[in-house]
């Protein structure tokens, strides 16, 4: 075992020193670069470091190993700290682990935990807590659907399938502050996975004392920058600063209130009334009004997500008809779609994987053509596939009931009508019904879909179109694609691995089981006094980096 990874410890203490130097008289740190606070620039801190944040629909659970939605993980990220953390710009930085070493074959990670890390009750955070948490995450009894995050760890899949006991998981506490994780295969994006809540540690004594109620206020012992103080379902969750957090001196906020609001208009109203400092999202229908009246507070930034329409390739008319699929994809004018129909900064997509770390996004070959050229090619392919004015394609689009999806479906249908003469019928369904229909692959021909990456790596997208993937609603099955993905999983060299995944995306785009439409953007309203907010591609924020400016 040789050390291939630079130890982060020195780097971090340097950053901390820089930050401290920048702070002067009781200032705040803005993450990557130190922010001058308290100087004549007017960036003074407010007396009350309290923020009120909109947080989308009500969370399912605060249990880090059982949650599956973004809303819950927004809060878990404040309550817990994984081995690896993220800077405001999304870069990976040491978290509960001060540093780590990776073996030459990339299969063994050794994490050196901070000796001064404490749980919110003062207990030291040890390697055993991580072992306990990781085993629980893989345990089928935990009833989590996100255990696949742990897949790279040795025996994880066998444990989740109930074939091995959780104690067989490839994790080991060498001593109180050294954790060893053994992987089944080298996984270049493994460190990124360690920011996921599935890998958070768990305080064993409080879990054993309270059982499933361990997540309640008063019971919950956590190791993050904040502790849970109050929870009223459908009303709010209040967290307060954790005095035992190892970096508590650099945490500015004393209280954060999270408010659930399913209704985005209601969230906007509360923001305008001054009850919220930050919104989870904005109602798209009000986009023009918002950019006109709250323009300076509207923050739009790239988000690791891809919006597409899929073809059901298991049934006619799209089975065995790559030409027809290509024709439909080319006939879509993505400029009109993103600029005129959506118009909230979405970026037109000609490929599947959005911009992610260490990867060059692939585009379909026609991406560089003009739209007129694409449409001419679309007509040619449409005719070649055997369709004409007299014998037009008759097909259906299924989408889940939502104003935006409806507008996009209508736009696509009219573009296909105009360019190709295709007759398209639209069907909308309520979300859960739609999920069923789409997954059954019986009624669907063309369906709406979208995917937000679970981690900042191309694989989080690539795996969706694997023939065995549960989310492969297109029913796409390409041995070549599966082979490239499998090869990428055991490839150690990052450049070669990226090349394999890029090759896989080219295969996918040549077969075209999907129509890539646009890459997502995150949209938030942020009050001018919220400091420390920085956009990042994962749209994930650690509120320990935030502060309130005087206003």
């Amino acid at each position: 075992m040789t050390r291939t990874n630079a130890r982060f410890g020195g780097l971090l203490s340097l950053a901390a020193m820089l930050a401290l130097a920048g702070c002067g008289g009781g200032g705040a740190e803005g993450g990557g670069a130190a922010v001058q606070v308290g100087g004549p620039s007017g960036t003074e801190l407010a007396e009350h470091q309290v923020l009120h944040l909109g947080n989308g629909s009500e969370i399912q659970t605060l249990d880090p190993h059982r949650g599956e939605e973004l809303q819950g993980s927004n809060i878990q990220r404040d309550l817990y700290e994984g081995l690896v953390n993220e800077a405001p710009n999304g870069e990976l930085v040491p978290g509960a682990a001060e540093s780590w070493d990776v073996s030459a074959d990339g299969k063994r990670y050794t994490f050196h935990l901070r000796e001064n890390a404490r749980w919110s009750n003062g207990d030291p955070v040890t390697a055993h807590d991580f072992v306990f948490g990781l085993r629980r995450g893989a345990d089928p009894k935990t009833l989590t659907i996100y255990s696949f995050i742990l897949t790279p760890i040795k025996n994880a899949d066998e444990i989740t399938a109930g074939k091995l006991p959780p104690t067989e998981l490839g994790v080991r506490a060498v001593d109180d502050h050294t954790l060893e994780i053994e992987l089944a295969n080298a996984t270049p994006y493994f460190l990124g996975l360690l920011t996921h809540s599935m890998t958070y540690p768990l305080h064993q004594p409080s879990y054993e004392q309270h059982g499933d109620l361990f997540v309640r206020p008063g019971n919950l012992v956590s190791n993050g920058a904040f502790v849970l103080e109050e929870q009223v379902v459908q009303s709010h969750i209040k967290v307060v600063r954790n005095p035992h957090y190892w970096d508590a001196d650099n945490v500015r906020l004393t209280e954060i209130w999270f408010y659930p609001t399913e209704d985005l208009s209601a969230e906007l109203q509360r923001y305008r009334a001054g009850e919220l400092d930050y919104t989870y999202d904005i109602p798209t229908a009000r986009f023009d009004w918002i950019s006109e009246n709250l323009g300076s507070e509207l923050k739009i930034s790239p988000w690791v997500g891809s919006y597409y329409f899929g073809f059901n390739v298991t049934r006619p008319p799209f089975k065995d008809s790559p030409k027809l699929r290509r024709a439909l994809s080319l006939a879509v004018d993505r400029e009109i779609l993103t600029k005129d129909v959506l118009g909230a900064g979405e970026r037109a997509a000609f490929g599947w994987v959005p911009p992610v770390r260490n990867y060059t996004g692939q585009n379909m070959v026609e991406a560089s053509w003009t739209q007129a050229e694409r449409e001419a090619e679309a007509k040619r392919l449409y005719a070649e596939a055997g369709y004409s004015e007299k014998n037009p394609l008759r097909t259906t689009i299924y989408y889940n009931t939502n104003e935006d999806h409806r507008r996009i479906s209508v736009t696509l249908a009219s573009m296909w009508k105009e360019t190709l003469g295709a007759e398209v019928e639209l069907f909308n369904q309520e979300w859960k019904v739609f999920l069923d229909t789409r997954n059954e692959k019986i009624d669907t021909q063309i369906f709406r879909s979208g995917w937000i990456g679970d981690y900042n790596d191309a694989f989080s997208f690539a795996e969706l179109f694997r023939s065995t993937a549960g989310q492969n609603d297109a029913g796409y099955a390409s041995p070549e694609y599966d082979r490239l993905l499998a090869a990428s999983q055991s490839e150690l060299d990052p450049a070669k691995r990226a090349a394999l995944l890029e090759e896989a995306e080219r295969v996918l785009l040549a077969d075209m089981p999907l129509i890539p439409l646009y890459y997502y953007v995150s949209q938030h309203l942020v009050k001018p006094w919220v400091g420390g907010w920085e956009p990042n591609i994962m749209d994930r924020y650690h509120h320990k980096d935030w502060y309130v400016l005087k206003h």
Partner: protein
Amino acid sequence: MLRYSLRRLLGAIPTLLILIAVAFVMIRLAPGGPFDSERQPSPEIEANLRAAYHLDEPLYQQFGRYLGGLLRFDFGPSFQYQDYSVTELITAGFPVSLTLGGTAILVALLVGVAAGCLAALRQNGAVDHGVMAVSMTGISIPNFVMAPLLVLVFAIHLRWLPAGGLGQGSLRNLVLPVIALALPQIAYLSRLTRGSMIEVLRSNFVRTARAQGLPTWKVIVKHALKPALLPVVSYLGPATAHVITGSVVIEQIFSVPGLGRFFVTGALNRDYTLVMGVVVFYGVLIITLNFLVDLAYAWLDPKVKYR
């Protein structure tokens, strides 16, 4: 009276059982299930999930299990809000909805009846036309339009009242949702009171009372009000139902953590136990309220006697 009450209570049991059975089957018939999500669970995990929530058992067994739980006031665990049981959610949500709905009905009664009486006394006068015009508007504007308007004016522009949430249980937070919820009821109640009051005022016993030289307020309060309130009382049952359904919308708009919101999110998430819990709870509530209304009837109208 006692025998009547007992009979009513016994009669409520089959009603409730039918309600539970129908709701139990209907929610399971709805396409899509509680564990459907964009990220499909592996077959093993899905089987574990179904077993953990007893969804793998035959339907009659699930139903029996559910009824057994109900007898112990146990509504089961929520599928969606995994950290809480349905009983806990209802216990937390109901007081909020009760405060909201109860205040709204009380306000509606006071304002609606007063306005109705006033209009009846000044029949075809300016006051009458004014009250009726306002109430017509109140009936015509649905609360999902009225509520955001109220927020826009009083929370965003004037900044007098909060736009949503419960705050720390402060009264200020209740004002807008209560008004939004009460307005349509005020409108309806004032029309109802006006109509029946006009009729009562024309009846013989009122004329006799007047002939005896009683002052108008005494005629109204002592003699006319009670019979005039009969239709109002019989409307209270449906009014409660309206307020409950209205609160589903209002709680959403004002982000109030009441039962109505659980009903909507529960249905959308296919949270079987939560939806069932709210249905059963509301079922019992409405049956009880209808019973109380009937008892109040006997008290108000000497012609009504229950045996």
